[in-house]
């Protein structure tokens, strides 16, 4: 589903990724771990299409299609989703409206009829029940006045509503206490399916106790330095990233 080949990328002239290779198949959950500044967030932004990140070499293929020149909204409509580390507050725009606009934008993209208010609310109710999201959170402006846990739950709700094929979760555990972490992880686990690939980006192993990955990769100095099964995360937890703190030869 996602094939990243020899990806080099820079931000404001500074090279951050130096040849990343990564393949995700449908039904798989991968975790990318790595020290701060290793390029984890850059990778997630490149997949979602944020401006200001230049690919200098290599490519990102999504279902065989090159994503490089696609606008973020088109990637989203094609099924790419990024859960933000720091979800953005949008005052004055009610959460429900935001979700409905997002769903209908994707439907328009695919030439499908838009959902009317009733159909949308029916669909939404089901998802919010599963994620334990209150009506109040839907009425309030997007992420405004939300606690850290509410913001992350809101990200997972967006993911559930948009039903992506590829979901990238950027430091979804940051700012969460143990209880919130469990709620968010349960939400993600419910969304695991044979048709969907999930890429979990995290600094800490604890998230992976809840969202157990099929594969773990270590990203350091802009390169995947090691790949393995879920046991690799435990090893990193024990030893830390010290051995990756030197540039690869």
């Amino acid at each position, binding site marked *: 589903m996602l094939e990243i080949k020899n990806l080099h990328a820079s931000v404001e002239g500074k090279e951050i990724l130096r040849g990343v290779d990564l393949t995700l198949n449908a039904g798989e959950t991968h975790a990318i771990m790595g020290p701060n500044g290793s390029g984890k967030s850059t990778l997630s932004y490149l997949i979602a299409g944020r401006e200001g990140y230049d690919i200098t070499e290599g490519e990102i293929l999504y279902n065989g299609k090159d994503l490089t020149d696609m606008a973020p909204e088109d990637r989203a409509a094609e099924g790419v989703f*990024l859960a933000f580390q720091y979800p*953005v507050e949008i005052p004055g725009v009610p959460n429900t409206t935001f979700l409905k606009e997002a769903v209908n934008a994707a439907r328009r993209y695919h030439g499908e009829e838009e959902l009317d208010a009733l159909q949308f609310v029916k669909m939404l109710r089901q998802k919010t029940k599963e994620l334990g999201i209150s009506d109040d959170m839907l009425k309030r402006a997007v992420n405004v006045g939300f606690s850290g846990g509410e913001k992350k739950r809101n990200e997972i709700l967006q993911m559930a509503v948009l039903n992506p094929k590829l979901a990238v979760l950027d430091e979804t555990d940051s700012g969460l206490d143990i209880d919130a972490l469990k709620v968010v992880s349960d939400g993600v686990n419910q969304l695991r399916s044979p048709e969907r690939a999930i890429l979990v980006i995290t600094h800490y192993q604890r998230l992976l106790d809840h969202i157990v990955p099929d594969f773990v990769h270590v990203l350091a100095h802009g390169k995947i330095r090691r790949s393995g099964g879920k046991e690799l995360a435990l090893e990193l937890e024990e030893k830390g990233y010290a051995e990756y703190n030197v540039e690869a030869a």
Partner: protein
Amino acid sequence: MHSMNTPVNTTAPFAGQFDAVSDQLPGLGLSWLDTRRQEAITEYNGFGLPTNKLESWKFTRLPRIADNDFRPVGPQDGEIAVETVPSLFDESAEGHRIVFVNGHHRPELSNIERLPKGVRLESLRATLERDPTFVEHYLSDLLGDKSAALNALNSAFMDSGLVVHVERDVEVTEPIEVIRLNGKTDTPVIRHPRNVIVVEDGATLTLVKNHSGLDVGGYLTNAVTDVHVGDGATLRHYTVQAESLDALHLANVNVNVGKDATYEAFSLTIGGRLSRMETNVRLTGTGGHCNLSGAYLLRGREHCDNTTVIEHLTPDATSREVFKGVLDDDSRGVFQGKIVVHKDAQRTDGHQLSKALLLSDRAEMDAKPELEIYADDVKCSHGAATGQLDETSLFYLRSRGIPEALARNLLIQSFMGEALEEVSDLVVREVMRDRILHWLPAQCYLSEEWRQE
């Protein structure tokens, strides 16, 4: 057509038009008014139009105007056919409204039959015929100040205008809409409307001014509005300025707010080539409150200036200002906000905020907050910020599949939302929101319920 009895100052266009029109002006033969007009024209002729040399006109430059660029508006300009009256409210509703076309009152387009007892709503001309002492009592007198030359020019001509009078303790529950349709004249005209709004002690009124251009052509409005809000009274004074693309719209609003009274003003500017709205509020009774807020959305080479002066003269009064602007293309926004807290105005609470969003590299915003405080127990804050659409927010919306144009619109609406919250009348707030929505550049796929929230 200009008689030249008055010596003409070249920087004082229109002064030369005075003698030619003076026998057609409202209130002809009232000696106090004739004297006033004479004094005012002499003063204006000495001052000329304001220039950038004046501190309060530093950021707004009036175009060079020759005497014959705009002819005085005449009765025939008010007779033109109007097929539909563009009310801000539901067209089918039987709301109170008074319609003026190029300053000329059009009773057949108006609807004032259902006004409660104790409310006067008519043209200045009518009041000057029936009850001139009322006008004499409430007209402001700002002579002697060079920066108020436009007030003097208006005081000389006062060719049209509106009088609103709400008697003591009368509550007008529905808004009164004042629709001013301008333009579509054979050659560009100048008008000098003078409005008098008096809300007596304990009375309540919501007044919505709707200035609409009838076509794209140019004309000049030099309006002065004198407002009196009596003790314990409430006036909500809203303006939607959607003048023609080439119109010049100059307005001075002079307000007196009594004890425990509330004056709430909100202006939405979406039209006009150049507009300046200058509001002077005097809080003259303890516990008075004023809110001067507004929103402006500009494109092309539009220029919008909101200048406010709030004077706290008595203790325990509060004032609040929130102005937000969206500037595209080569447009220019100006906000000047001065708060003067006089010596006796203890426990004054003043808050002022100006924010602008620049959608283009060429757009420009000048904000000048000014506090003058002579009392010692005072709470005053001000802030001014100018920025661009937040790139992270834009990416966030787009990453959820929302197309860029719609994402930008959503963020502009989000930005404007903070200003709209200042409009306490919820029906009017939605009217304003709707006008903002229609200003936005790209087609907007917004769901109905969003507008209602």
